Protein backbone atom coordinates (compact mmCIF):
# COMPACT_ATOMS: atom_id res chain seq x y z
CA UNK A 1 0.00 0.00 0.00
CA UNK A 2 2.97 2.32 0.53
CA UNK A 3 3.64 4.13 -2.69
CA UNK A 4 6.12 6.93 -3.17
CA UNK A 5 4.41 10.31 -3.05
CA UNK A 6 3.53 11.17 -6.59
CA UNK A 7 2.94 14.81 -7.38
CA UNK A 8 -0.35 14.33 -9.15
CA UNK A 9 -0.28 16.15 -12.48
CA UNK A 10 -2.87 18.77 -11.97
CA UNK A 11 -3.79 19.69 -15.49
CA UNK A 12 -6.04 16.72 -16.07
CA UNK A 13 -9.43 17.42 -17.52
CA UNK A 14 -12.32 16.34 -15.34
CA UNK A 15 -14.76 14.55 -17.59
CA UNK A 16 -15.06 16.30 -20.90
CA UNK A 17 -14.54 19.88 -19.76
CA UNK A 18 -11.55 21.36 -18.00
CA UNK A 19 -11.40 20.83 -14.28
CA UNK A 20 -12.40 24.08 -12.64
CA UNK A 21 -9.50 25.62 -10.87
CA UNK A 22 -6.79 23.42 -12.32
CA UNK A 23 -4.72 25.63 -14.51
CA UNK A 24 -1.31 23.99 -14.62
CA UNK A 25 -0.76 22.41 -18.03
CA UNK A 26 0.42 18.82 -18.12
CA UNK A 27 4.13 19.31 -17.53
CA UNK A 28 5.96 16.43 -19.13
CA UNK A 29 5.16 14.09 -21.93
CA UNK A 30 6.84 11.04 -20.47
CA UNK A 31 3.67 9.90 -18.69
CA UNK A 32 1.25 9.28 -21.54
CA UNK A 33 -2.26 10.64 -21.16
CA UNK A 34 -3.63 9.40 -17.94
CA UNK A 35 -7.33 9.02 -17.49
CA UNK A 36 -9.15 10.94 -14.78
CA UNK A 37 -9.88 7.73 -12.92
CA UNK A 38 -6.27 6.66 -13.13
CA UNK A 39 -5.30 9.83 -11.34
CA UNK A 40 -8.05 9.61 -8.80
CA UNK A 41 -7.03 6.06 -8.06
CA UNK A 42 -3.42 7.16 -7.63
CA UNK A 43 -4.39 9.77 -5.08
CA UNK A 44 -6.88 7.49 -3.39
CA UNK A 45 -4.27 4.75 -3.01
CA UNK A 46 -2.28 6.93 -0.67
CA UNK A 47 -5.27 7.13 1.67
CA UNK A 48 -4.70 3.87 3.47
CA UNK A 49 -7.86 4.08 5.56
CA UNK A 50 -9.97 4.78 2.48
CA UNK A 51 -8.49 1.80 0.64
CA UNK A 52 -9.04 -0.39 3.68
CA UNK A 53 -12.65 0.80 3.80
CA UNK A 54 -13.13 -0.02 0.14
CA UNK A 55 -11.56 -3.47 0.46
CA UNK A 56 -13.66 -4.45 3.47
CA UNK A 57 -16.80 -3.07 1.84
CA UNK A 58 -16.14 -5.08 -1.32
CA UNK A 59 -15.62 -8.17 0.84
CA UNK A 60 -18.93 -7.53 2.61
CA UNK A 61 -20.75 -7.12 -0.69
CA UNK A 62 -19.13 -10.26 -2.09
CA UNK A 63 -20.07 -12.25 0.98
CA UNK A 64 -23.68 -11.09 0.68
CA UNK A 65 -23.84 -11.84 -3.03
CA UNK A 66 -22.38 -15.28 -2.37
CA UNK A 67 -24.80 -15.93 0.50
CA UNK A 68 -26.44 -18.93 -1.25
CA UNK A 69 -23.01 -20.58 -1.46
CA UNK A 70 -21.48 -19.38 1.80
CA UNK A 71 -24.42 -19.66 4.19
CA UNK A 72 -24.11 -22.94 6.09
CA UNK A 73 -27.87 -23.17 6.78
CA UNK A 74 -31.17 -22.11 5.31
CA UNK A 75 -31.61 -18.65 6.89
CA UNK A 76 -35.34 -19.19 7.47
CA UNK A 77 -35.19 -22.77 8.74
CA UNK A 78 -36.41 -23.05 12.33
CA UNK A 79 -34.77 -25.56 14.64
CA UNK A 80 -36.31 -25.52 18.09
CA UNK A 81 -33.64 -27.81 19.53
CA UNK A 82 -31.03 -25.05 19.35
CA UNK A 83 -32.81 -21.83 20.35
CA UNK A 84 -30.74 -18.80 21.44
CA UNK A 85 -27.44 -20.65 21.59
CA UNK A 86 -24.10 -18.91 21.83
CA UNK A 87 -21.43 -19.23 19.16
CA UNK A 88 -20.33 -22.83 18.62
CA UNK A 89 -18.66 -25.01 16.02
CA UNK A 90 -21.99 -25.85 14.41
CA UNK A 91 -23.28 -22.27 14.54
CA UNK A 92 -20.34 -19.86 14.36
CA UNK A 93 -22.38 -16.84 15.48
CA UNK A 94 -24.98 -18.73 17.49
CA UNK A 95 -28.70 -19.08 16.88
CA UNK A 96 -31.72 -16.85 17.36
CA UNK A 97 -35.05 -17.41 19.12
CA UNK A 98 -36.29 -19.72 16.36
CA UNK A 99 -33.04 -21.65 16.34
CA UNK A 100 -32.08 -20.11 13.03
CA UNK A 101 -28.39 -19.82 12.23
CA UNK A 102 -27.32 -16.19 12.79
CA UNK A 103 -24.38 -16.33 10.38
CA UNK A 104 -26.66 -17.47 7.56
CA UNK A 105 -29.21 -14.79 8.41
CA UNK A 106 -26.50 -12.12 8.47
CA UNK A 107 -25.24 -13.18 5.05
CA UNK A 108 -28.72 -13.25 3.53
CA UNK A 109 -29.77 -10.13 5.45
CA UNK A 110 -26.78 -8.30 4.02
CA UNK A 111 -28.27 -8.68 0.57
CA UNK A 112 -31.34 -6.75 1.65
CA UNK A 113 -29.58 -4.17 3.84
CA UNK A 114 -26.97 -3.36 1.20
CA UNK A 115 -29.39 -3.31 -1.70
CA UNK A 116 -31.66 -0.86 0.13
CA UNK A 117 -28.68 1.45 0.40
CA UNK A 118 -27.83 1.23 -3.28
CA UNK A 119 -31.37 1.39 -4.65
CA UNK A 120 -32.38 4.25 -2.34
CA UNK A 121 -29.36 6.27 -3.43
CA UNK A 122 -30.16 5.52 -7.08
CA UNK A 123 -33.70 6.82 -6.56
CA UNK A 124 -32.58 9.91 -4.67
CA UNK A 125 -29.75 10.61 -7.09
CA UNK A 126 -31.86 10.09 -10.20
CA UNK A 127 -34.67 12.37 -9.08
CA UNK A 128 -32.28 14.84 -7.44
CA UNK A 129 -30.34 15.08 -10.69
CA UNK A 130 -33.47 15.90 -12.64
CA UNK A 131 -34.73 18.45 -10.10
CA UNK A 132 -31.33 20.08 -9.65
CA UNK A 133 -30.58 20.22 -13.36
CA UNK A 134 -33.95 21.70 -14.26
CA UNK A 135 -33.74 24.13 -11.38
CA UNK A 136 -30.23 25.33 -12.01
CA UNK A 137 -30.50 25.46 -15.75
CA UNK A 138 -33.96 26.97 -16.06
CA UNK A 139 -33.71 29.49 -13.22
CA UNK A 140 -36.57 31.91 -12.62
CA UNK A 141 -39.84 30.89 -11.00
CA UNK A 142 -39.37 27.21 -11.72
CA UNK A 143 -36.05 27.27 -9.87
CA UNK A 144 -37.71 29.09 -6.99
CA UNK A 145 -40.60 26.67 -6.80
CA UNK A 146 -38.44 23.55 -6.94
CA UNK A 147 -36.01 24.85 -4.35
CA UNK A 148 -38.81 25.81 -1.96
CA UNK A 149 -40.16 22.26 -2.30
CA UNK A 150 -36.68 20.99 -1.45
CA UNK A 151 -36.62 23.34 1.56
CA UNK A 152 -39.87 21.79 2.74
CA UNK A 153 -38.44 18.29 2.45
CA UNK A 154 -35.36 19.43 4.37
CA UNK A 155 -37.58 20.85 7.12
CA UNK A 156 -38.20 17.31 8.36
CA UNK A 157 -35.68 15.27 10.31
CA UNK A 158 -34.76 12.52 7.86
CA UNK A 159 -35.79 9.49 9.92
CA UNK A 160 -39.12 11.13 10.70
CA UNK A 161 -39.73 12.02 7.05
CA UNK A 162 -38.88 8.47 6.00
CA UNK A 163 -41.36 6.97 8.45
CA UNK A 164 -43.96 9.57 7.47
CA UNK A 165 -43.57 8.47 3.83
CA UNK A 166 -43.78 4.84 4.97
CA UNK A 167 -47.04 5.65 6.71
CA UNK A 168 -48.47 6.57 3.30
CA UNK A 169 -46.84 3.82 1.24
CA UNK A 170 -47.23 1.00 3.75
CA UNK A 171 -44.59 -1.40 5.00
CA UNK A 172 -42.07 -3.46 3.10
CA UNK A 173 -38.56 -3.50 1.72
CA UNK A 174 -39.36 -1.87 -1.64
CA UNK A 175 -41.31 0.89 0.04
CA UNK A 176 -38.47 1.52 2.45
CA UNK A 177 -36.17 2.01 -0.55
CA UNK A 178 -38.57 4.57 -2.03
CA UNK A 179 -39.01 6.41 1.28
CA UNK A 180 -35.28 6.68 1.91
CA UNK A 181 -34.71 7.71 -1.71
CA UNK A 182 -37.27 10.52 -1.45
CA UNK A 183 -35.66 11.80 1.74
CA UNK A 184 -32.31 12.06 -0.07
CA UNK A 185 -33.57 14.00 -3.14
CA UNK A 186 -32.94 17.55 -1.81
CA UNK A 187 -29.30 16.85 -1.00
CA UNK A 188 -28.50 15.79 -4.57
CA UNK A 189 -30.71 18.43 -6.12
CA UNK A 190 -28.85 21.17 -4.24
CA UNK A 191 -25.41 19.91 -5.24
CA UNK A 192 -26.37 19.59 -8.90
CA UNK A 193 -27.98 23.02 -8.92
CA UNK A 194 -25.00 24.68 -7.25
CA UNK A 195 -22.59 23.06 -9.70
CA UNK A 196 -24.67 24.23 -12.62
CA UNK A 197 -24.94 27.78 -11.35
CA UNK A 198 -21.18 27.94 -10.94
CA UNK A 199 -20.36 26.81 -14.47
CA UNK A 200 -23.39 27.95 -16.43
CA UNK A 201 -21.73 31.21 -17.39
CA UNK A 202 -18.23 29.82 -17.90
CA UNK A 203 -16.57 30.42 -21.24
CA UNK A 204 -16.74 26.93 -22.57
CA UNK A 205 -20.45 26.65 -21.88
CA UNK A 206 -21.03 30.00 -23.56
CA UNK A 207 -18.90 28.75 -26.45
CA UNK A 208 -20.91 25.56 -26.71
CA UNK A 209 -24.10 27.57 -26.71
CA UNK A 210 -22.74 29.89 -29.37
CA UNK A 211 -21.81 26.80 -31.36
CA UNK A 212 -25.50 25.93 -31.45
CA UNK A 213 -25.49 23.05 -28.96
CA UNK A 214 -28.92 22.18 -27.63
CA UNK A 215 -29.81 22.70 -23.97
CA UNK A 216 -29.86 18.96 -23.43
CA UNK A 217 -26.45 18.52 -24.98
CA UNK A 218 -24.91 21.36 -22.97
CA UNK A 219 -26.40 19.90 -19.82
CA UNK A 220 -25.31 16.32 -20.39
CA UNK A 221 -21.98 16.88 -22.15
CA UNK A 222 -20.62 20.02 -20.54
CA UNK A 223 -22.26 20.74 -17.24
CA UNK A 224 -22.97 17.42 -15.56
CA UNK A 225 -19.52 15.86 -16.08
CA UNK A 226 -18.09 18.78 -14.14
CA UNK A 227 -20.53 18.28 -11.33
CA UNK A 228 -19.57 14.61 -11.01
CA UNK A 229 -16.96 14.94 -8.25
CA UNK A 230 -19.22 16.31 -5.51
CA UNK A 231 -22.08 14.06 -6.65
CA UNK A 232 -20.00 10.89 -6.44
CA UNK A 233 -18.73 11.83 -2.99
CA UNK A 234 -22.24 12.65 -1.82
CA UNK A 235 -23.58 9.36 -3.24
CA UNK A 236 -20.91 7.34 -1.41
CA UNK A 237 -21.63 8.99 1.92
CA UNK A 238 -25.34 8.91 1.05
CA UNK A 239 -25.18 5.13 0.67
CA UNK A 240 -23.94 4.80 4.24
CA UNK A 241 -26.72 7.08 5.47
CA UNK A 242 -29.28 5.10 3.48
CA UNK A 243 -28.06 1.82 5.00
CA UNK A 244 -28.39 3.33 8.50
CA UNK A 245 -31.89 4.61 7.74
CA UNK A 246 -32.93 1.29 6.20
CA UNK A 247 -31.75 -0.48 9.33
CA UNK A 248 -33.72 2.01 11.42
CA UNK A 249 -36.91 1.37 9.43
CA UNK A 250 -36.33 -2.37 9.75
CA UNK A 251 -35.82 -1.94 13.50
CA UNK A 252 -39.10 -0.02 13.80
CA UNK A 253 -40.88 -2.85 11.98
CA UNK A 254 -41.61 -0.79 8.87
CA UNK A 255 -39.10 -2.32 6.47
CA UNK A 256 -38.52 -5.98 5.76
CA UNK A 257 -41.33 -8.14 7.12
CA UNK A 258 -40.77 -11.44 8.97
CA UNK A 259 -39.50 -14.04 8.47
CA UNK A 260 -37.11 -12.38 6.00
CA UNK A 261 -33.70 -11.59 7.41
CA UNK A 262 -32.44 -8.01 7.42
CA UNK A 263 -29.93 -6.50 9.84
CA UNK A 264 -32.25 -3.87 11.34
CA UNK A 265 -35.18 -6.25 11.67
CA UNK A 266 -32.91 -8.86 13.26
CA UNK A 267 -32.03 -6.32 15.96
CA UNK A 268 -35.69 -5.60 16.63
CA UNK A 269 -36.33 -9.29 17.34
CA UNK A 270 -33.13 -9.68 19.31
CA UNK A 271 -34.18 -6.87 21.64
CA UNK A 272 -36.91 -9.07 23.09
CA UNK A 273 -34.34 -11.61 24.22
CA UNK A 274 -31.66 -9.21 25.36
CA UNK A 275 -31.80 -10.45 28.96
CA UNK A 276 -31.29 -14.11 28.10
CA UNK A 277 -29.20 -13.87 24.95
CA UNK A 278 -27.44 -10.52 24.55
CA UNK A 279 -25.09 -12.00 21.95
CA UNK A 280 -27.93 -12.14 19.41
CA UNK A 281 -27.94 -8.32 19.31
CA UNK A 282 -24.19 -8.11 18.77
CA UNK A 283 -23.62 -9.35 15.25
CA UNK A 284 -26.25 -7.58 13.13
CA UNK A 285 -25.31 -4.28 14.76
CA UNK A 286 -21.63 -4.93 14.20
CA UNK A 287 -22.30 -5.59 10.54
CA UNK A 288 -24.24 -2.34 10.11
CA UNK A 289 -21.52 -0.37 11.91
CA UNK A 290 -18.75 -2.00 9.90
CA UNK A 291 -20.48 -1.39 6.57
CA UNK A 292 -21.26 2.24 7.36
CA UNK A 293 -17.77 2.84 8.76
CA UNK A 294 -16.15 1.44 5.59
CA UNK A 295 -18.33 3.58 3.34
CA UNK A 296 -17.58 6.67 5.42
CA UNK A 297 -13.84 6.05 5.30
CA UNK A 298 -13.96 5.42 1.57
CA UNK A 299 -16.17 8.45 0.97
CA UNK A 300 -13.84 10.76 2.91
CA UNK A 301 -10.84 9.48 0.98
CA UNK A 302 -12.66 9.74 -2.30
CA UNK A 303 -13.56 13.33 -1.55
CA UNK A 304 -9.93 14.22 -1.02
CA UNK A 305 -8.82 12.27 -4.08
CA UNK A 306 -11.47 13.58 -6.47
CA UNK A 307 -11.13 17.19 -5.57
CA UNK A 308 -8.78 18.36 -2.86
CA UNK A 309 -10.69 21.61 -2.64
CA UNK A 310 -13.73 19.80 -1.29
CA UNK A 311 -11.86 18.89 1.87
CA UNK A 312 -14.14 19.53 4.80
Amino acid at each position, binding site marked *: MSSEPIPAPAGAPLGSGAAPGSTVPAPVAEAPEESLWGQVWKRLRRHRLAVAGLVVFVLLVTASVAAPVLAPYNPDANDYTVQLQGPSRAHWLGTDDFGRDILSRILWGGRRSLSVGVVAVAIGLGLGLVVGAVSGYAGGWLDNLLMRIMD*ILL*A*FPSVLLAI*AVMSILGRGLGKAMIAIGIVAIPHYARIVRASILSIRESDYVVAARAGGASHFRILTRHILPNAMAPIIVRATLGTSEAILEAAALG*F*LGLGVQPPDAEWGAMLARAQEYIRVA*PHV*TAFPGLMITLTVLCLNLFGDGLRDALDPRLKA
Partner: protein
Amino acid sequence: MLSYILRRLLMTIPVLLGITLVSFMALSVTADPTSAILGQHATLERMADLRTQLGLDDPIPVQYYHYLVKLAHGDLGRSWMTRAPVITEIAQRFPHTVELTVLAVILSVILGVAVGVISAVKQYSWFDNLSMIGALVGVSMPIFWLGLVLIAIFPVKLGILHVSGLIDPKLALTSFEPKTHFYLTESLVTANWEVFRNVLGHLVLPSVALAAASTALVARMTRSSLLEVVNQDYIRTARAKGLSERLVVYKHALKNALIPVFTVVGLQFGALLGGAVLTETTFSLPGVGKLAVDAILNGDMPLVNGIVLLVALAFVLVNLLVDVLYGWLDPRIHYS
Protein backbone atom coordinates in the same frame (compact mmCIF):
# COMPACT_ATOMS: atom_id res chain seq x y z
CA MET B 1 -31.48 42.68 13.31
CA LEU B 2 -35.17 42.88 14.16
CA SER B 3 -36.14 43.28 10.53
CA TYR B 4 -33.96 40.30 9.71
CA ILE B 5 -35.76 38.17 12.29
CA LEU B 6 -39.12 39.35 11.00
CA ARG B 7 -38.16 38.58 7.42
CA ARG B 8 -36.90 35.15 8.36
CA LEU B 9 -40.16 34.51 10.23
CA LEU B 10 -42.15 35.57 7.16
CA MET B 11 -40.02 33.31 4.98
CA THR B 12 -40.85 30.32 7.13
CA ILE B 13 -44.57 30.75 6.44
CA PRO B 14 -44.48 29.24 2.91
CA VAL B 15 -42.34 26.41 4.22
CA LEU B 16 -44.81 25.77 7.02
CA LEU B 17 -47.74 25.92 4.59
CA GLY B 18 -45.90 23.44 2.41
CA ILE B 19 -45.41 21.19 5.40
CA THR B 20 -49.13 21.32 6.21
CA LEU B 21 -49.96 20.57 2.58
CA VAL B 22 -47.63 17.58 2.52
CA SER B 23 -48.95 16.18 5.76
CA PHE B 24 -52.54 16.85 4.76
CA MET B 25 -52.10 15.06 1.44
CA ALA B 26 -50.57 12.19 3.33
CA LEU B 27 -53.68 12.15 5.46
CA SER B 28 -56.15 12.15 2.59
CA VAL B 29 -54.53 9.46 0.46
CA THR B 30 -54.13 6.94 3.23
CA ALA B 31 -56.54 4.15 3.80
CA ASP B 32 -60.04 4.58 5.15
CA PRO B 33 -59.84 4.99 8.93
CA THR B 34 -63.38 3.82 9.56
CA SER B 35 -62.57 0.15 9.67
CA ALA B 36 -59.65 0.90 11.97
CA ILE B 37 -61.96 2.68 14.38
CA LEU B 38 -65.04 0.46 14.15
CA GLY B 39 -63.31 -2.88 13.77
CA GLN B 40 -63.88 -5.40 11.04
CA HIS B 41 -67.46 -6.27 12.00
CA ALA B 42 -68.84 -2.78 11.33
CA THR B 43 -71.78 -2.45 8.98
CA LEU B 44 -71.40 -0.45 5.78
CA GLU B 45 -74.01 1.98 7.07
CA ARG B 46 -72.12 2.78 10.24
CA MET B 47 -68.93 3.21 8.23
CA ALA B 48 -70.66 5.66 5.90
CA ASP B 49 -72.00 7.57 8.90
CA LEU B 50 -68.57 7.81 10.40
CA ARG B 51 -67.07 8.96 7.10
CA THR B 52 -69.54 11.84 6.97
CA GLN B 53 -68.95 12.57 10.63
CA LEU B 54 -65.17 12.74 10.12
CA GLY B 55 -65.63 14.95 7.05
CA LEU B 56 -64.04 12.39 4.76
CA ASP B 57 -66.75 12.79 2.10
CA ASP B 58 -65.93 16.42 1.31
CA PRO B 59 -63.83 17.32 -1.75
CA ILE B 60 -60.13 17.35 -0.91
CA PRO B 61 -59.52 21.12 -1.29
CA VAL B 62 -62.45 21.71 1.07
CA GLN B 63 -60.96 19.24 3.52
CA TYR B 64 -57.62 21.06 3.32
CA TYR B 65 -59.32 24.38 3.95
CA HIS B 66 -61.11 22.98 6.99
CA TYR B 67 -57.85 21.50 8.13
CA LEU B 68 -56.06 24.85 7.91
CA VAL B 69 -58.84 26.72 9.70
CA LYS B 70 -58.76 24.22 12.52
CA LEU B 71 -55.00 24.37 12.59
CA ALA B 72 -55.11 28.13 13.03
CA HIS B 73 -57.18 27.48 16.15
CA GLY B 74 -54.63 25.05 17.47
CA ASP B 75 -56.94 22.14 16.68
CA LEU B 76 -55.02 19.23 15.18
CA GLY B 77 -57.99 16.90 15.17
CA ARG B 78 -58.57 13.83 17.26
CA SER B 79 -56.55 10.67 17.36
CA TRP B 80 -58.39 7.86 15.60
CA MET B 81 -57.27 5.37 18.22
CA THR B 82 -57.78 7.15 21.53
CA ARG B 83 -60.34 9.74 20.35
CA ALA B 84 -58.42 12.30 22.43
CA PRO B 85 -57.39 15.59 20.85
CA VAL B 86 -54.06 15.21 19.06
CA ILE B 87 -52.74 18.38 20.67
CA THR B 88 -53.28 16.93 24.17
CA GLU B 89 -51.64 13.67 23.24
CA ILE B 90 -48.61 15.55 21.95
CA ALA B 91 -48.54 18.01 24.85
CA GLN B 92 -48.24 15.07 27.25
CA ARG B 93 -45.40 13.45 25.35
CA PHE B 94 -43.38 16.30 23.87
CA PRO B 95 -41.87 17.47 27.20
CA HIS B 96 -40.25 14.06 27.69
CA THR B 97 -38.65 14.29 24.25
CA VAL B 98 -37.48 17.83 24.95
CA GLU B 99 -35.81 16.79 28.20
CA LEU B 100 -34.16 13.81 26.52
CA THR B 101 -32.94 15.92 23.60
CA VAL B 102 -31.65 18.73 25.80
CA LEU B 103 -29.76 16.23 27.97
CA ALA B 104 -28.23 14.78 24.82
CA VAL B 105 -27.23 18.23 23.56
CA ILE B 106 -25.60 19.11 26.91
CA LEU B 107 -23.75 15.80 26.93
CA SER B 108 -22.53 16.11 23.37
CA VAL B 109 -21.36 19.71 23.80
CA ILE B 110 -19.45 19.09 27.05
CA LEU B 111 -17.89 15.83 25.89
CA GLY B 112 -17.42 16.83 22.27
CA VAL B 113 -15.75 20.18 23.02
CA ALA B 114 -13.51 18.65 25.68
CA VAL B 115 -12.36 15.84 23.42
CA GLY B 116 -11.98 18.20 20.47
CA VAL B 117 -9.85 20.69 22.42
CA ILE B 118 -7.54 18.02 23.84
CA SER B 119 -7.22 16.44 20.39
CA ALA B 120 -6.30 19.75 18.80
CA VAL B 121 -3.85 20.78 21.52
CA LYS B 122 -2.18 17.40 21.39
CA GLN B 123 -2.51 16.89 17.65
CA TYR B 124 -1.38 13.45 16.39
CA SER B 125 -0.94 12.15 19.95
CA TRP B 126 -2.40 8.77 20.86
CA PHE B 127 -5.36 10.55 22.45
CA ASP B 128 -6.01 12.46 19.23
CA ASN B 129 -5.79 9.34 17.07
CA LEU B 130 -7.91 7.28 19.39
CA SER B 131 -10.62 9.87 19.81
CA MET B 132 -10.84 10.57 16.09
CA ILE B 133 -11.23 6.83 15.42
CA GLY B 134 -13.86 6.80 18.14
CA ALA B 135 -15.59 9.72 16.43
CA LEU B 136 -15.64 7.83 13.13
CA VAL B 137 -17.16 4.78 14.79
CA GLY B 138 -19.58 7.03 16.66
CA VAL B 139 -21.13 8.45 13.50
CA SER B 140 -21.24 5.00 11.88
CA MET B 141 -23.13 3.23 14.65
CA PRO B 142 -26.90 2.90 14.49
CA ILE B 143 -28.36 4.74 17.50
CA PHE B 144 -30.71 1.90 18.36
CA TRP B 145 -27.90 -0.64 18.33
CA LEU B 146 -25.80 1.49 20.66
CA GLY B 147 -28.88 1.65 22.88
CA LEU B 148 -29.18 -2.14 22.85
CA VAL B 149 -25.49 -2.54 23.65
CA LEU B 150 -25.83 -0.13 26.58
CA ILE B 151 -28.84 -2.09 27.83
CA ALA B 152 -26.94 -5.37 27.52
CA ILE B 153 -24.00 -3.95 29.49
CA PHE B 154 -25.51 -1.81 32.23
CA PRO B 155 -28.92 -3.09 33.34
CA VAL B 156 -28.54 -6.67 32.11
CA LYS B 157 -24.91 -7.48 32.97
CA LEU B 158 -24.07 -5.01 35.73
CA GLY B 159 -27.55 -4.55 37.15
CA ILE B 160 -27.40 -0.75 37.24
CA LEU B 161 -29.60 1.87 35.59
CA HIS B 162 -32.78 0.93 33.76
CA VAL B 163 -33.87 -0.99 30.68
CA SER B 164 -36.93 1.06 29.89
CA GLY B 165 -39.42 3.65 31.02
CA LEU B 166 -39.07 7.11 32.49
CA ILE B 167 -39.79 6.65 36.19
CA ASP B 168 -40.40 3.71 38.51
CA PRO B 169 -44.18 3.16 38.57
CA LYS B 170 -44.13 2.69 42.35
CA LEU B 171 -42.36 5.98 42.88
CA ALA B 172 -44.72 7.70 40.48
CA LEU B 173 -47.67 6.50 42.54
CA THR B 174 -46.30 7.32 45.98
CA SER B 175 -44.18 10.43 45.94
CA PHE B 176 -44.69 12.37 42.75
CA GLU B 177 -47.67 14.33 41.55
CA PRO B 178 -46.37 16.18 38.54
CA LYS B 179 -48.07 19.38 37.51
CA THR B 180 -46.24 19.47 34.20
CA HIS B 181 -44.80 16.73 32.02
CA PHE B 182 -41.26 17.98 32.40
CA TYR B 183 -40.51 15.38 35.07
CA LEU B 184 -36.80 16.05 35.34
CA THR B 185 -37.08 19.83 35.47
CA GLU B 186 -40.04 19.79 37.81
CA SER B 187 -38.44 17.40 40.30
CA LEU B 188 -35.30 19.53 40.18
CA VAL B 189 -37.18 22.77 40.79
CA THR B 190 -39.28 21.31 43.60
CA ALA B 191 -36.15 19.68 45.06
CA ASN B 192 -37.77 16.24 44.96
CA TRP B 193 -34.42 14.50 44.88
CA GLU B 194 -35.68 10.94 45.03
CA VAL B 195 -37.70 11.44 41.87
CA PHE B 196 -34.98 13.51 40.22
CA ARG B 197 -32.42 10.78 40.74
CA ASN B 198 -34.83 8.14 39.49
CA VAL B 199 -35.82 10.01 36.34
CA LEU B 200 -32.22 10.97 35.61
CA GLY B 201 -31.21 7.34 36.09
CA HIS B 202 -33.78 6.37 33.49
CA LEU B 203 -32.61 9.04 31.06
CA VAL B 204 -28.85 8.47 31.29
CA LEU B 205 -28.58 5.57 28.85
CA PRO B 206 -31.03 6.94 26.27
CA SER B 207 -29.34 10.33 26.23
CA VAL B 208 -25.89 8.75 25.90
CA ALA B 209 -27.12 6.69 22.95
CA LEU B 210 -28.76 9.73 21.41
CA ALA B 211 -25.74 11.96 22.00
CA ALA B 212 -23.11 9.63 20.54
CA ALA B 213 -23.26 10.75 16.91
CA SER B 214 -23.50 14.45 17.79
CA THR B 215 -20.63 14.14 20.25
CA ALA B 216 -18.51 12.69 17.47
CA LEU B 217 -19.42 15.52 15.11
CA VAL B 218 -18.85 18.21 17.74
CA ALA B 219 -15.46 16.72 18.64
CA ARG B 220 -14.35 16.64 14.99
CA MET B 221 -15.63 20.16 14.37
CA THR B 222 -14.01 21.58 17.52
CA ARG B 223 -10.71 19.97 16.63
CA SER B 224 -10.53 21.16 13.03
CA SER B 225 -11.88 24.60 13.86
CA LEU B 226 -9.40 25.11 16.71
CA LEU B 227 -6.51 23.93 14.55
CA GLU B 228 -7.52 26.46 11.93
CA VAL B 229 -7.83 29.34 14.38
CA VAL B 230 -4.52 28.53 16.05
CA ASN B 231 -2.67 29.38 12.84
CA GLN B 232 -4.04 32.90 12.64
CA ASP B 233 -2.14 36.11 13.22
CA TYR B 234 -3.84 37.21 16.41
CA ILE B 235 -2.94 33.95 18.06
CA ARG B 236 0.67 34.49 17.06
CA THR B 237 0.40 37.98 18.52
CA ALA B 238 -1.02 36.61 21.75
CA ARG B 239 1.84 34.14 21.97
CA ALA B 240 4.37 36.83 21.10
CA LYS B 241 3.06 38.93 23.99
CA GLY B 242 4.13 36.07 26.20
CA LEU B 243 0.71 34.84 27.25
CA SER B 244 0.61 31.35 28.67
CA GLU B 245 -0.47 28.58 26.33
CA ARG B 246 -3.52 28.01 28.51
CA LEU B 247 -4.65 31.58 28.14
CA VAL B 248 -3.99 31.56 24.40
CA VAL B 249 -6.00 28.41 23.85
CA TYR B 250 -8.91 29.04 26.18
CA LYS B 251 -9.28 32.79 26.03
CA HIS B 252 -8.23 33.67 22.51
CA ALA B 253 -8.54 30.63 20.30
CA LEU B 254 -11.43 28.66 21.71
CA LYS B 255 -13.88 31.55 21.71
CA ASN B 256 -13.60 31.94 17.96
CA ALA B 257 -13.22 28.27 17.27
CA LEU B 258 -16.52 27.52 18.96
CA ILE B 259 -18.62 29.59 16.55
CA PRO B 260 -18.77 26.93 13.81
CA VAL B 261 -19.23 24.30 16.51
CA PHE B 262 -22.30 26.16 17.66
CA THR B 263 -23.79 25.91 14.16
CA VAL B 264 -23.16 22.18 14.08
CA VAL B 265 -24.97 21.80 17.39
CA GLY B 266 -27.89 23.80 16.05
CA LEU B 267 -28.11 21.75 12.89
CA GLN B 268 -27.90 18.58 14.97
CA PHE B 269 -31.22 19.39 16.56
CA GLY B 270 -33.17 17.89 13.67
CA ALA B 271 -31.02 14.78 13.68
CA LEU B 272 -31.56 14.50 17.44
CA LEU B 273 -35.33 14.75 17.05
CA GLY B 274 -35.16 12.02 14.42
CA GLY B 275 -32.83 10.04 16.66
CA ALA B 276 -35.28 10.45 19.53
CA VAL B 277 -37.73 8.33 17.53
CA LEU B 278 -35.24 5.47 17.63
CA THR B 279 -33.95 5.96 21.19
CA GLU B 280 -37.45 6.25 22.61
CA THR B 281 -38.46 3.08 20.82
CA THR B 282 -35.37 1.24 22.07
CA PHE B 283 -35.86 2.35 25.69
CA SER B 284 -39.69 2.46 25.66
CA LEU B 285 -39.69 6.11 26.70
CA PRO B 286 -43.10 7.76 26.48
CA GLY B 287 -41.89 10.62 24.28
CA VAL B 288 -43.25 12.03 21.06
CA GLY B 289 -40.97 9.80 18.96
CA LYS B 290 -42.39 6.61 20.43
CA LEU B 291 -45.84 8.14 19.98
CA ALA B 292 -45.08 8.74 16.30
CA VAL B 293 -43.98 5.15 15.74
CA ASP B 294 -47.02 3.74 17.55
CA ALA B 295 -49.29 6.06 15.58
CA ILE B 296 -47.79 4.94 12.27
CA LEU B 297 -47.97 1.26 13.18
CA ASN B 298 -51.63 1.77 14.11
CA GLY B 299 -52.40 3.84 11.02
CA ASP B 300 -53.49 6.74 13.23
CA MET B 301 -53.05 9.45 10.61
CA PRO B 302 -54.19 12.59 12.47
CA LEU B 303 -51.71 11.81 15.21
CA VAL B 304 -48.86 11.13 12.74
CA ASN B 305 -49.79 14.32 10.98
CA GLY B 306 -49.79 16.43 14.11
CA ILE B 307 -46.46 15.10 15.30
CA VAL B 308 -44.75 15.58 11.96
CA LEU B 309 -46.15 19.09 11.73
CA LEU B 310 -45.05 20.11 15.21
CA VAL B 311 -41.59 18.58 14.89
CA ALA B 312 -41.03 20.30 11.55
CA LEU B 313 -42.22 23.56 13.13
CA ALA B 314 -39.84 23.12 16.06
CA PHE B 315 -37.03 22.31 13.66
CA VAL B 316 -37.63 25.41 11.52
CA LEU B 317 -37.82 27.67 14.57
CA VAL B 318 -34.67 26.24 16.13
CA ASN B 319 -32.80 26.81 12.89
CA LEU B 320 -33.99 30.41 12.90
CA LEU B 321 -32.87 30.79 16.50
CA VAL B 322 -29.46 29.35 15.67
CA ASP B 323 -29.04 31.79 12.79
CA VAL B 324 -29.93 34.75 14.97
CA LEU B 325 -27.69 33.64 17.84
CA TYR B 326 -24.92 33.08 15.34
CA GLY B 327 -25.00 36.75 14.42
CA TRP B 328 -24.99 37.71 18.07
CA LEU B 329 -22.00 35.49 18.82
CA ASP B 330 -20.02 36.60 15.82
CA PRO B 331 -20.26 40.36 15.30
CA ARG B 332 -18.48 39.99 11.95
CA ILE B 333 -21.72 38.69 10.50
CA HIS B 334 -24.14 41.39 9.43
CA TYR B 335 -27.71 40.88 8.42
CA SER B 336 -29.14 43.37 6.03
